[in-house]
Structure formats: C-alpha cells, structure tokens
C-alpha cells in the first residue's frame, strides 16, 4: 500500500535513527512510504490561540498534498503528528480556521480536513496489524523488559488525537509484545517529560526524573519512545546512569525484523 510520508526536521538531523529504522522496516513490511516533496517544518508546537493561522499553514500544505494524491499521511515524530493531526481537525471542524487558511493558501482546490493522518504506530496497528507484525519478527526480543513511554503529544487531547485511551493506553505495549519482548507498564508512562521547558529552565528536570525512576522501580531495562524531544530530555536526566537506556521504537522494530 502506498502512503505519503512526512518526516519533519528533527528526523533529518538529530533523530536520524528514528527515521532510518522506520524506513527500512517499512520496506520489509511491504509498506511504501513516499516522502512528500517540498515538505516544510510543521512548527514543532500546535498554535493554541484562536487567532493564529500562520503557524498552521505548512501542516495544511502537507495535508492537502496527501489528500490530492488520495493517500494517507504518515508521520513519525510525535510532535509533528500532534501538530498535523490537530491542524487537520481544525480544517475539518473550525470554519474560522478553514476559511482563513484556504484564503491564504489559494490551493488549486480548497482543503477541508479530508485527509487521514496516521502515526507510524497507528499504521502498524490498524493497517498492518500487530499479529501480522509478530509473524514477520525474525529475531524476537525475548526476555527484554521494555517500558513504553508515551509522553503527551500522541495521546492528548484524546478527542482530537484519537490515538488510544489517554489515561490507560496500550498500543506501545501491544507493539512491544508483538516484537517478543516483555512489556512493563509503569505508572509514569503517560506523564510529561518537561518538553520544551528545558530552554526556560536549565535546572534539574524532576519531571523526567519521575519517569525514569518509575520505570527503573519496575526493573525496566529499555524505555521506548516515539519523540526526539522526550528522548533528549530523558537521556539528559539519565546522564551517566546505565540502568536503563532510551530507544526509539523503530530501532527495536528493525532489530526484531533482523535488519538493524
């Protein structure tokens, strides 16, 4: 099946692993990801103010491009996914935004939020299926205790993101189980890592510390994430501590598919 694929800036620089493993895994799984031409930065954060239109334009360009090709738009970075999905919801249901964005962009055809945005994980769950994925695993990660870290951006607000149960999600655990590893649910797995606060406050990040301690408390050896920013914050807090390591979910995927 053919999909439009939106990478985002960080995946081309500091988070190349996240993308690299996703792309080679997709090949093995028979998923065709065509990187969008001329994609632009999504803006990194979804503009929350009602009157901010400019910050939503680049997301709409990608959405409209995917829609015009009749393809689903696949995202990989949690932040890009959040922005694009929420902008799409605005284009679908918020007339104020829809009108202004279309007026500004003057696309060949007005865009009204018709495209379907899927995170790579949703693609694995809904279009591939975790049971099918499990069949493709060639090097099961048997015995490894892996804790999923969801963070904020994939889950909330759940009425827009519609990703999983925001308070008690299971998609990442199901993913880990499909790869043959042991999924450990630890209490802080949906708490915030501190996000961009790191530019404001360089002091100790107790938010990230809570997450790490909660995972270590349940003997988690690897923490799985889909977000470069989460990975950065958690690793920074971890410092030289080697009790646990932070990995992108795609890295484990490639490992289990024996293509890493």
């Amino acid at each position, binding site marked *: 099946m053919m999909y439009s694929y939106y990478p985002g800036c*960080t995946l081309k620089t500091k988070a190349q692993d996240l993308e690299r493993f996703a792309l080679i895994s997709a090949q093995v799984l028979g998923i065709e990801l065509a990187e969008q031409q001329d994609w632009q930065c999504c803006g990194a954060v979804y503009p929350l*103010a009602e009157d901010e239109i400019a910050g939503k334009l680049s997301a709409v360009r990608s959405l409209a491009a995917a829609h015009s090709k009749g393809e689903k738009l696949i995202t990989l970075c949690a932040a890009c996914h959040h922005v694009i999905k929420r902008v799409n919801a605005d284009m679908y249901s918020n007339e104020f935004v829809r009108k202004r964005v279309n007026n500004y962009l003057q696309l060949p055809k007005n865009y009204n939020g018709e495209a379907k945005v899927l995170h790579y994980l949703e693609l694995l769950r809904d279009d591939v299926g975790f049971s099918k994925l499990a069949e493709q695993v060639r090097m099961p990660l048997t015995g490894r205790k892996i804790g999923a870290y969801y963070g904020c951006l994939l889950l909330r607000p759940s009425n827009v993101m519609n990703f999983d149960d925001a308070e008690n999600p299971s998609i990442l655990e199901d993913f880990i189980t499909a790869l043959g590893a042991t999924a450990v649910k630890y209490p802080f797995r949906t708490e915030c890592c501190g*996000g*961009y*606060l790191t530019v404001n406050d360089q002091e100790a990040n107790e*938010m990230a510390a809570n997450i790490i301690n909660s995972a270590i408390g349940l003997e988690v050896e690897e923490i799985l994430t889909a977000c*470069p920013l989460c990975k950065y914050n958690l690793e*920074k807090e971890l410092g030289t501590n080697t009790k646990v390591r932070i990995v992108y979910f795609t890295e484990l995927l490639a490992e289990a598919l024996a293509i890493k």
Partner: protein
Amino acid sequence: MIRVKITPNNKQSQLQYIREISGVNINKCIQCTKCSAGCPASARMDILPHEIIRLLQLGQVEKIFHSKSIWNCASCFVCTERCPRNIDIARLIEAIRLTIIRQPGKSKFKPDDVPGIIDDKMPQQVLVSGFRKYNR
C-alpha cells in the same frame, strides 16, 4: 501584604483579549482542582492552574502576569484532558503567555540565549518550540 482587594476594572481589555484568543469560558470552572492535582509541572508553579482560573474570574490578571507558572507550563494537555467541565486550560495558559509576549520587547526567549543552552544532542525541535512558546 495587602489584605483588602478591590476587583480592578482597568484590566478588562486584557481579560477580554485572553478570553478571545483562548476561546475559553472561564465561568465554567467549578474549582474542582483536578487540573492542578494532575499537573506534572506544578512543583515549579507559584500559582496553580485552578488558581489562575480563579484569579481570572476575579479580574486579577496582574498577579498571573507576574507568576512563574505560565512559563513553566509544558503544554502537556493533562489538565485539558481531565477537566470535568471541558475547559481547555492549556489553551487558556497559552493565551496568557501570548498576551505578554505579543507586547514589544517582552519575549522570554531570545536568539542570544541559544548558545547558553545548546548542546550537541539537543534536537532543533526544542529550539523551535521554545521560540514558538516564548517568543514573538
């Protein structure tokens, strides 16, 4: 400490602005405090989210403008997700931030600050979002 408070009316325009750009009806709040109770960043806040809404209801915007809380909100949307009254608190706090940084020279994070915080691992996503949240 001044114990007697007079609800000021000269802040009405700022209050109105916050209401407009957030699209939030602050009168829906019943002060259940669930936002504050679940806030992962509350340890670094001098005024808790439910108190911010209460102060807005009372027109005490000045107190909020001088608080650390609005800069320490990580926009993690836990408050919005759990609010039993469907108040989008994350949006409200963003609106308060914008009310300040949209004024000339009030940006919180400036290009000059970058060298001081950057390290070789930092994804540029951090910087972009930092500028989006703290700079106009």
